[in-house]
Structure formats: structure tokens, C-alpha cells
């Protein structure tokens, strides 16, 4: 693995040639916002928040830094009018689903996103896929996955598997930026396998 010299926000940055722009930025202490990214997981490229402007051989392009490979003499700008607009509109689109998510609210403040710009659609899930991917890649249980497609896409806990795995684990709950994951789990439990906690609770009477 050799080193590559590039530029991020006017600063010279040295990066390993197998790194992504996001990794290179983080190593150099430069912040790029992300929503669907996690160190332990394969980059997903779904939220598009980490989009940056790259310039190579005089041509400008907008790419997601979590997936874009570093290159010699690459010029990267993590903020610009265009990049900021992309982030702002993406936030506004997501706030329509989860207007109170602390992570989204804080980003909204930074990018001037208006949480009321679009009509509300209170699904509370931003489909970042952190829960799905964590369960597949790290826990390898596949207890929760995406179903359907397009605007109907949602996450679904699979009752047969969730009944056996989730109560002891619960690790994906902390990853969820909107707390929807745990809500979805408990709803699935209540509908599909109620009585799980009674079955595993110590035998005391409660009033």
C-alpha cells in the first residue's frame, strides 16, 4: 500500500492509496457529515450526505466520499454552495419523516434546513440501513432487512428470527438515528410473538 498526496479544503493530505476520500478526511481531522456510514460496516452510499466536490484533471464532479477512492492530486472540497444545497435538501426530505431526530435537527441547524418545507410523512425511518447492515455484517443474524421497493421500502424485523435473537442483543437500537429501530422491534414483538418477556421473567407476581 503506497501513499497518495491530495488536497482537501486547500489542505495537503497524505492518504493510503486504498482509502476512500472520507477515510482520508477523517484521518486528517476534516469533518464530513454522514448518516448511513459506520466504521464497522461496508460503506453504503445511500444517504448522500457525505457528497463532496472533487476535481481531477480540471473536471468537477460530485461524488459520495464514503465510496470514492483517493487519487493522486485529487482536489476535494467538502463545502461549497452546491454541496451545501444538496445536503440541505436531503435533510429537508428526511425531516419530513423524522422531524425530531436529534442528529437530523443538529445537521438542519448547520445547513439551514427547514423541517417544514415538505409535507410530513411520519414514518420515522430514514432508511439509513444501519440496523439491517449491522445485523447482517457484524452479528450475521439477518433478523431485520429491507422489504418492498421505492417509496414503499421499509425495514422489517423478521418475527421467526427476532423472537430468538433480538432481546439478548439490541445492539442495533443504539445505532438508529431516529429510534425507529427499537419501536419497530417492539411492535413486531407485540404483534408476532407477545409474551416473550413473561416467558423469560423470573416468577414473581406483579400487581
Amino acid at each position, binding site marked *: 500500500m503506497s501513499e497518495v498526496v491530495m488536497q482537501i479544503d486547500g489542505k495537503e493530505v497524505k492518504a493510503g492509496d486504498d482509502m476512500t476520500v472520507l477515510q482520508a478526511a477523517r484521518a486528517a481531522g476534516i469533518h464530513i457529515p454522514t448518516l448511513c456510514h459506520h466504521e464497522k460496516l461496508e460503506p453504503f452510499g445511500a444517504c448522500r450526505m457525505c457528497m463532496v466536490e472533487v476535481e481531477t484533471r480540471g473536471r468537477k464532479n460530485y461524488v459520495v466520499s464514503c465510496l470514492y477512492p483517493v487519487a493522486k492530486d485529487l482536489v476535494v472540497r467538502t463545502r461549497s454552495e452546491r454541496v451545501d444545497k444538496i445536503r440541505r435538501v436531503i435533510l429537508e426530505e428526511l425531516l419530513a419523516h423524522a422531524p425530531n431526530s436529534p442528529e437530523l435537527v443538529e445537521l438542519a441547524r448547520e445547513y439551514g434546513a427547514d423541517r417544514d418545507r415538505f409535507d410530513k410523512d411520519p414514518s420515522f425511518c430514514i432508511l439509513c440501513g444501519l440496523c439491517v447492515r449491522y445485523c447482517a455484517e457484524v452479528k450475521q443474524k*439477518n433478523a431485520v432487512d429491507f422489504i418492498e421497493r421505492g417509496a414503499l421500502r421499509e425495514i*422489517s424485523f423478521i418475527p421467526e428470527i427476532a423472537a430468538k435473537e433480538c432481546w439478548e442483543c439490541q445492539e442495533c437500537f443504539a445505532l438508529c438515528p431516529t429510534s425507529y429501530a427499537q419501536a419497530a422491534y417492539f411492535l413486531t414483538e407485540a404483534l408476532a410473538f407477545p409474551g416473550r418477556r413473561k416467558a423469560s421473567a423470573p416468577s414473581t407476581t406483579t400487581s
Partner: protein
Amino acid sequence: MDIAKIDQIIEKHRGKAGDLIHVLMEIQHENHWLPRDVLHQIAAALDIPFSRVLRIATLYKTFSLTPKGRNEVHVCTGISCHLRGANKLLDAVERATGIKPGETDANRRFSLETGSCLGSCSLGPEIIVNGTHHARMTPAKVEDVLKEYQ
């Protein structure tokens, strides 16, 4: 449901994870729907997570996780048919069958789907019932056409 047939189909693809879509297609074609325990069976035989099977089965409109009707009615809503009045045709079909796209009626007589472009745009607007084209349809003709299908 012909369990032996389904088992046969799954056996043919045992261990071949890349064949998932083929297996689902063959069973959907044979059985007209995909029962959940069959999905589990497929996951086990192809050695893939059940969640992937479920994901692919819900991703495509072609696969149905609930039993379909005896007669599958398809109203083409491709752009050419749309420009030739597919919306009104669909309204008439909904009235005649009592169901909306994606639904099956309670007697399992009809399942209704819409979708794009079956490639016979000169015949538009059209409905296709069990693979048979009914070309250059008008809302007025719908009752007569559907009457034939019990």
C-alpha cells in the same frame, strides 16, 4: 398446492445461491403464490439468509405472498396506453371486478395488476387476462370481456 412439485423445483437449485430469482419464478408460476414456509425452505436449500429471500420476494410485483385469483387481469399503464386513455379503462376494470391493483377479490376470481409496457403499444389501451390480449379496449367493453372469465 402441489408440494411434490415445489420440492422438485427447490431440489434442482439446491446450494446455488445465485438461482434465487429462478426458484421464486418457477414456484410462483407453478403455484401462483409463495407461502412463507416455502420461502424458509428455499432459504435453507440455497443456503442464504431468509431475510434475503423475503426481501427479493417483496421487491418484485411478480411475486405474490398471498394467494392470487384464478384469473389474472393486467391493465397496461404504459405511457402510450396512458395517452390513449388507460386511466379510464382502469376505472372501469376496478368497478367491474370490485378490486384495486395489487388486490384479489374475496372469491379469488380476479387478481388485478397494472404495469408498464408490455411492448404492444399499437394495441393500446389494452387489458391482458391470463395472457390473452384484449386490444383497443374501451370502458364500455370491459364488462363483456370480463364476463367470460369465471
